[in-house]
């Protein structure tokens, strides 16, 4: 059974550009969450979606947005990229989103130059 898949695995963008990251959850899981992990730190919560609705948002600027599709896959969009957006972006899949185990993908390494 496939785990959480994220694409692309690596990405280099220029300041001011826009980026879209994609995530496919584990089959049967209805919730997807996005986290940002800066080198040397723990993951920081960005968004949670359940059944295509936003259930939570972390302390990130409006340049960050996300959505969940009818097949439960998800996209994270970041506009007007800054150097500080360079990080590993992680997608976590869980069955319900609350009170159930969360499984992470391998992440997308975003480098902003």
């Amino acid at each position, binding site marked *: 059974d496939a785990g*959480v898949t*994220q694409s692309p695995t690596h990405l280099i963008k220029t300041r001011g550009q826009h980026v879209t990251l994609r995530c496919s959850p584990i089959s049967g899981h209805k*919730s997807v*969450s996005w*986290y940002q992990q800066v080198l*040397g*730190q*723990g*993951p*920081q*919560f960005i968004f*949670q979606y*359940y059944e295509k609705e936003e*259930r*939570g948002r*972390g302390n990130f600027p409006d340049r960050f947005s996300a959505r969940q599709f009818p097949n439960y896959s998800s996209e994270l969009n970041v506009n007007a990229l800054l150097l500080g957006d360079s990080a*590993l972006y*992680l997608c*976590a899949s*869980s069955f*319900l*989103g*609350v*009170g*159930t*185990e*969360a*499984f*992470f*993908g*391998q*992440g997308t*390494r975003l480098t902003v130059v």
Partner: protein
Amino acid sequence: QQQVKQSPQSLIVQKGGISIINCAYENTAFDYFPWYQQFPGKGPALLIAIRPDVSEKKEGRFTISFNKSAKQFSLHIMDSQPGDSATYFCAGSGNTGKLIFGQGTTLQVKP
């Protein structure tokens, strides 16, 4: 009130020894406490998790001890192996499902 504090930041253990990582949380609404293992360049992998209604949970060489009154929990890795060398994160979660992570502990197991 959302923080999870993790210690030590780094840990060196001899092969066969016991690795102990500690975490403290502030939010009393947290009701789920997972531990994740992360290798360089990979996403975190769920290792073991506990809920506050039990004081200890064991899975193989990994044990979580939980002290609700002190708002502390710890991960014990018995018979540590070089393959256990990784970064370990504790986390807490409440009714939102949002995971609040500790700062991480880099474990090195020397052969």
